[in-house]
C-alpha cells in the first residue's frame, strides 16, 4: 500500500473516490444505514481537500450482543471491532490489512472471513463471532483448551485467527484429514512456526468430539 502516487508525489484520490462510491451502494442496498447529521458521503468536488466520507451509525451483532458503532462507509469490520467499538474488542488482530494473513479471521454468518476485507456496513445485523465469542480464559472452548494443551501458540499474535479458523474448519469438516486441515488453515500465517502444534490441537479436538459422540 503506497501512500502517494509515485510519479507525482501527490496524494492520489481517484481510487478512493471510486472505492467509496461502491461502498455506499452496498450500504444503501442493505437499507441499514441511517445517515447521521454529518450526512452520507457527498459528491466530492475537490478530491485534494475533501474528506470523502461521512459517518453512519449502525448496529453490529457481535458475539450475540448488539453493539452500536459510528463508522464510515470505508471502515472495515476489523477496525470497527478494534477501534470504533467502546469498549473495543482487540482479540482480533491486524497483521497485513490486505487479506493475506488470517490474523483478523472472524465468523460472519457462521462462515470464516477476513475482517480486514469486510466493510462494517455490510455486516450490520449479521451475526459476527470473534475469538472472544468462543470462550474466555476461565471458560475456554474445546479448541482454545486444545491450543493451550498442545502449545498451539508461541508469541500468540496469530493465535486468535487460528482459533477462529480451526473452529470453522472443524465445524465444516469434523473428520478432516491432516491434509484437509492444512488446506482449511492455509489462510492463516504464523511466523513463530506453531503449525505442527496447531495440527495437534485440531486433532485432539477431533478425537474429543468423536469420543463425546460415541458416548451419547
Amino acid at each position, binding site marked *: 500500500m503506497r501512500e502517494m502516487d*509515485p510519479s507525482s508525489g501527490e496524494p492520489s484520490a481517484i481510487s478512493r473516490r471510486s472505492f467509496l462510491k461502491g461502498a455506499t451502494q452496498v450500504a444503501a442496498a442493505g437499507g441499514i444505514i441511517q445517515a447521521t447529521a454529518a450526512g452520507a458521503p457527498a459528491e466530492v468536488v475537490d478530491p485534494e*481537500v475533501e474528506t470523502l466520507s461521512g459517518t453512519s451509525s449502525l448496529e453490529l451483532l457481535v458475539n450475540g450482543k448488539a453493539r452500536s458503532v459510528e463508522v464510515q462507509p470505508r471502515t472495515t469490520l476489523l477496525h470497527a471491532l478494534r477501534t470504533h467499538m467502546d469498549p473495543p474488542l482487540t482479540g482480533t488482530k491486524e497483521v497485513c490489512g490486505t487479506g493475506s494473513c488470517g490474523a483478523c479471521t472472524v465468523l460472519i454468518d457462521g462462515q470464516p472471513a477476513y475482517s480486514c476485507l469486510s466493510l462494517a456496513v455490510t455486516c450490520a445485523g449479521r451475526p459476527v463471532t470473534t475469538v472472544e465469542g468462543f470462550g474466555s480464559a476461565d471458560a475456554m472452548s474445546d479448541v482454545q483448551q486444545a491450543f493451550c494443551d498442545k502449545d498451539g501458540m*508461541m*508469541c*500468540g499474535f496469530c493465535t486468535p485467527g487460528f482459533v477462529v479458523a480451526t473452529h470453522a474448519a472443524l465445524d465444516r469438516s469434523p473428520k478432516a484429514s491432516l491434509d484437509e486441515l492444512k488446506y482449511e488453515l492455509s489462510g492463516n500465517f504464523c511466523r513463530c512456526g506453531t503449525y505442527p502444534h496447531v495440527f495437534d490441537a485440531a486433532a485432539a479436538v477431533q478425537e474429543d468430539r468423536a469420543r463425546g459422540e460415541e458416548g451419547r
Partner: protein
Amino acid sequence: MSSSSRGAQASEPSWGKRSDLDVLNRDIPRVDGPVKATGEAIYTHDVRLPGMLWARVLVHPVPRAEIESIDLEVASEMPGVVYVEALKEPGDAVRYLGDDAVLAVVAAETPDQAADALRAIKVKARRLAPVVTPAQALEDGAPVVSRRRDADSNVGRANERGDEAVADAALAGAVAVVERTFEIPIQHHVCLETHGHVVQPAPDDEQVTVYASTQSVGGTPRGLARTLGRDASKIRVLTPHMGGGFGSKFGPGLEGAMAARVADQTGRPVHLMLTRSDEFAIAGNRSGSRQTLKVGARSDGRLVGLKLDADKHGGVSGGSLPGPPYIYTVADDSAVASRIRSVFTATDGSRAMRAPGHPQASFAMEAAVDELAYLLGIDLVEMRIRNLDSEVHHRQLRRVAEEIGWGEHPHRDRPGRAENGRAVGIGFGVSVWGPGGRSSRCDVTIRPDGSVVSATATQDLGTGARTYVAAIVAEELGLAVNMIEARIGDSDLPPSVTSGGSVTTGSSAPAIKDAAHKAREGLEALLVDVLEAPVGSYVWRNGQVSVRGDSTRSLPWIAVCALLREPLLAQGEFRDFLHEGRIHGAQAAKVEVDTLTGRVKVLKMVACQDQGLPLNRLALRSQINGGMVQALSYGMLEQRVFDEQDGFLLSDNLDLYKIAGAQEMPEMVALIDDEDERPSVCGMAEAPVIPGHSAIAGAIHNACGARLTRMPFTADNVLETLYGKI
C-alpha cells in the same frame, strides 16, 4: 518484609537430579495460554487509553531523493488532526529506504484520520539513482551510499584471515575440490506484531508509561530518555505480551522516538505502530550474501583446505557472516583463508535476526560437504561425522538419520535420479550456538496467605519465558505451576537481560532458581523449631513439606506460610554454575522433487537439539519446530525484491513477500537430545533455525543431482539448475 537473602545460606542452589523433578523437564502448558487463546492478552497493538492519539509515519517510497518541499498545510487542517511534523527540510536528502526515509509524523483522534492526513501531505522530491542491489552499488561511478563519513565507495574494508597461499597449496594437494558461488537473498523478520509503542506522558515527577513491543523491557527506558528529556528511572516500560521480535526489536527505534515526542508535545497518550508496509521498509532484515567457497578433501573425506570470498549485503549496515569453516573443521587450521567484506546499498540496515549470519554460512558450508562426499563416494552422514569435532553432533546426526529413514534410503553417497519425473532425496545440516548467560535478578515473594510471586523484568517473545518464571519456583517449593504468579514485562521489576542471542533462559533461569532456593531456605529456617530438623533436610512436594526420611513430620504449604509474620522476600541473582554455554543441533530433511515442473515438496523434517536441562519440553518442541518452519520458509519462499529501475520495494506486504503457511508444512519431528545430561540450563532459540534450509537444499541435490546455489528454491531455480538457463 523479611529478606532471606540477608541470612547465611545453608547450601547452593542446584537443578537437582532429573529423576527427582516433578515440574521441570516435563510438558508444561504455558501459563499465558488461556489469555492468548481467547484474545484477552493485551499486546502493545491493543492498548487503548483515554484520550489516546493515533500516530503514523510517512515513509518516502524510494530510497534516494532530494527533498524539494513537504507541504503539511492541508494535512494539518483536516478534521481530527492534532499533530503534524516534517522530519526533513527542503534540500535535505533521503539517503536510504529505512529510518532516513521517514519524512513526517502525524497524529489524529482516529486511525483513519491519521491515515487521511498522511495521504494529504504533499511531498515534492527529486529522485536519485536507487542503488538497491549490490550490482548497482558496485557499478563504476555508483553514488556512495555508505553511512561512514569518509567512505569513498560502497565496499567496506575486507576482513582477511589466514594465508591464501597456504590454503591454495592445501587445495592443490586435495583429492577432491569443489568451488561454488552462493547467492543468499535478504530475509525479513516478519514479526506478526509490527514495531511500535504506546506512550502515556506524565508530569516531570511521575513516570512516563511506555507500552512497547520490545525484546528489551530493561533497555527501552534508556533508549527513550533523551527524547523524553528525563532520567530513565522516570520511564516505565511495559510489555505484557509481544507479537514476535526475532532480533529486530532491541531498541525503540525512530518509531519509538516519534511516539515519545508526539506524546511529549501534545500531552496526550500516543499509539504508534508501524503499518505492515512501513515494517518491510524500515524495521530491519537478515542480511544477504554472495559467497564463493572452495573446499578440498582427502580421499577419506577429511577436509584439508578452504577458501572463502564473501560479500555481505546488509543495506546501509554491515551485515553478518561468521568466518569459515562453519562448524566443520579442516585438518590443519592454517589451510583456511577468507576475505569477507560488506557491500552497502541504499536500503534498510540489517539487524540481528535469529542466529545472525549463521544460516547464511550454513548454506554454503553444508553444500560443500555434500558435494565432496559425492565426489569421494562417502555417505553424507559419515562425511559429516568425519569432519565434526563434537561427539554430540555425531550422536545427533545418527539420531536424525535414523528418524528420517536414512538407512533404507537407496542413494546415500551419490545423488539419485528422477523416475517418471519424481525424485526423493534426504539432506542434513548441523548447528551450534553459544548462548551464555549474564547478570540478571529475580524476586520471589511468599505471603502469609500462601500466595507466591516470582518477578523479573524479562519479556516473553513467545519462548515461554513467563511459564518458567513460575515453573522453576513451583519445582523448588513443591507447588503446582498455577500457584505461582509470574510477573514479567515491566521495567520496574528486578532487572534482567535483553532477549537476544538466546541469552534469556541462561541468564534469568539461574536467578529465578537462586531466588526460589533462598525462599525455600527462608521457610526451612522457620520450620527448625516446628518440625525440628535443620535447614536443608526437608522435602517439598505436592504442596507439602516433610522432614527427609520421616514423612510423619510434615506440614501443608498453607500451614508453613501461616508461620510467616510478614511476606518473605528472596532476592536471586545470576549464578554462573546454573547455566550452560554451548549447544548443538542436527537436522535432516526429506524432499520430493518434480523434475518436470521443478516443484519441490518438503516431506519431512527432523531436528535433534541439546540445551542442558529442558525446563519445559512442550515449549522446547514448539521452538525447535519454529526453527525448522522458519528455515523452511527461508529456503523455499522468502526474498526481498526491489524494483531496480526506480527503487520501489516490491515485496512490501505478505501477498508479495511469502512466508510458509500450513500447506507447506511437512511432517515435523522435534527431538530433545536427552543424552545431554548437563545439570544446567540454557536458551536454544537460535540453533534450530540455522541448518533447515541447508538440509532441504542437500535433499534436493540428493534427490536429483541439482545443487541449488541460490535461494529460495523455487521451481524456476530448480529447472535452471537441472537443465541450464532457458
